[in-house]
């Protein structure tokens, strides 16, 4: 069984942008419309149903603030990892990727371990109101992207440790920043605009 070898096609770059990065921007475009569709639907409903403010008052903006800080800081470590990859230092890049993954894990633990159980215990389940339906759907879809991103990031870090495929550090970082940007919008939508 021969090991997989990259075809010549992957190495060409008629647009001037390396293939991996070009592909990632197209992926992000499709993700923008996915989250965009969901968030636009939420905004339209929320403006149309001002009484949802009663429900929205019950989200915990302090937890939201903490999670936002966690994600912002993990974005910082992701871009520092990219810097080390640019300098050719795979080991350092991997370590900073692990810091980023740690941030993702913290985000998930805070959300699934504390925030949601507490809200569900108080009776704010998805079917409790239109607001909560959107809350769990949007934050849940976002969290799924955080977990998926952290998983891929871990796999990239293993290669980076061996100084292999260092360009992927930047790519997984760009994806991570996108997930951060989605949260930058989710935070005011779900926690601030009460």
């Amino acid at each position, binding site marked *: 069984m*021969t090991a997989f070898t990259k075809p010549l096609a992957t190495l060409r770059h*008629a647009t001037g942008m390396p293939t991996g990065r070009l592909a990632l921007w197209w992926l992000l*475009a499709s993700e923008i419309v996915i989250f965009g569709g969901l968030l636009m639907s939420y905004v339209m409903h929320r403006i149309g149903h001002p009484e949802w403010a009663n429900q929205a008052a019950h989200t915990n903006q302090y937890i939201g603030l903490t999670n936002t800080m966690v994600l912002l800081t993990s974005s910082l470590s992701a871009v520092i990892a990219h810097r080390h990859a640019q300098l050719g230092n795979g080991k350092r890049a991997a370590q900073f990727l692990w810091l980023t993954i740690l941030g993702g894990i913290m985000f998930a633990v805070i959300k699934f371990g504390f925030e949601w159980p507490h809200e569900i215990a108080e009776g704010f389940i998805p079917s409790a109101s239109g607001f909560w339906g959107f809350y769990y759907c949007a934050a849940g879809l976002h969290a799924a992207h955080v977990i998926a991103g952290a998983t891929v990031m871990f796999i990239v870090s293993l290669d980076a440790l061996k100084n292999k495929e260092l360009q992927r550090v930047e790519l997984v970082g760009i994806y991570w920043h996108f997930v951060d940007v989605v949260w930058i919008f989710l935070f005011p939508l779900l926690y601030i605009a009460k």
Partner: protein
Amino acid sequence: MTTTEHKHDHAHDHSHDHGHHQQSFFMKYMWSTDHKMIAQQYMWTGVFMACIGGFFAYCFRMQLAFPGIHVPGYGQVAPGEYNALVTNHGTIMIFWFAMPVLIAAFGNFAIPLLVGCDDMVFPRLNRLSYQVFLLSALILIASFFVPNGGFGGAWTAYPPLSANASYSMTTLGSSMWIVAVALEFVAFLMGGINFITTAMNSRAPGMKMFDVPYVVWMIVVASILFMCSVGPLIAGAVMLFFDQNFGTAFFDPSRGGDPILWQHLFWFFGHPEVYVVLLPAMGITAEIICTFARKKLFGYKTLLYSTFATGIISFFVWAHHQFIAGIDPRMANIFTVTTLIISIPIAEMMFLFIATLFGGSIRFHVPMLWALAFIGEFLLGGVTGIFLGASGADIYFHDTYFVLAHFHYTFVPIAVIGFFAGFTYWFPKMYGKMLNETLGKIHFWGTIAGFNLIFIPLFFTGAWGDHRRIYNYDHFPELTRPELQDLRIAATCGLLLMIASQAFFLINLIVSFSRGKKAPNNPYNGNTLDWTTPSPPPHGNFPHDNMPVVYRGPYEYGVPGRATDFWPQNEKA
């Protein structure tokens, strides 16, 4: 550019220059990353699903022509089953036949060959996309066998019917349906990234933007349309799944939700989707008519700009599916105007095809017959869309068989005719054998005759008031007139003729695979890079140390002063 750098990066790559690929059956056929094998996987899965979708059509058309009969091969069609048959026929044909064969199969097979590279840019992602696609197909098929059967809420899945189990009466089936559709979207997002990046980045040296074969452009634009439009529906699918299973009320009006939101989410994607499947079919047609008319494509740049215009306008027409759903009538005005405008670039593209044919030296080989049929039949479908695009007329026509006949006159040319066009055109390249022309022509005429016999009567029944999605007409005495029933029976006979004609296709396959003439590299004297490879192309397509370089456009046929009437893109002089 020294050899030392080359060694540094690709020390282990020499292996694929030596033909020691003793791959196991599993590695070669089921775990392959080769774009040509993945294309085969998509194609035959798509054809298999089309047979299922076609069987469903057979069942419900028999029920409509002869209400209450025991359909041979199925049994009696119960009302709930009728809904599931109609729903899954539509869903399968669009998502599990048209898209996989036109975009994934032909795109995967042809794009690397046409742009002159050795594979797609992400072969492992390609393999994963097929596996996710296969999983989605299996989940959909499984949904037919769960308690209460498959989802029956129409392929448009409007809530509250689709969201509420007490209305749809298929708790598990509905959820499996939406999960299957969502997975299919994910598979095509992955595939789309591959097609777009390969075409944008991996073109052969010398292949500038306007030297790219048209079908590549079409599949790329279709992929971009898909990626930019499917997002809201994926969001909507997640919301619908939540409504079905977690008791949320996104679309439940009694609890503050809005079913119109689903309609918008669905059709914002649903309309660009039809262009997602149309453009590849037009691309295949363009390739075929140039090759078999021995003539340069008339107005390549105009065709390209019309394609871009169609793609852009396609995002502005979606609410023409919702004219009578209760949208703001001023929006209906706007969408009428945009819908009528979009017919202009598409008509322009058809005129350019006709102009390409004009004065050409036309050879009526089977692929050319299919391409010509596409042009003629799609034109009929397109002009009937004008009636529906005008919101005033649509008040009458909406939800009648007129709509159904319109979209079958567009979809069947796209999916069925487009598939057979591409398949007969690239068969020699894919399998190294030539198809039998006589069998191909019988298959062609039988399919076309059958197809027209199905849907022309349905234009009439629709215009006379026949509603869609009705199991039988017991409660509609005004629709049980013998004239209408005669037309319904005629339509069903057309379907039976169309199905029977496929036997000639099957026989052709068997005969050609076993005893077909060996295909040369370039059986049609084509210009594009795919015809420079052996039939079938080896792993890697082109010799690694001699990748093609391109010197001219792809349609230089009949150039004066040359000995031959074609001029391959990679020939130096």
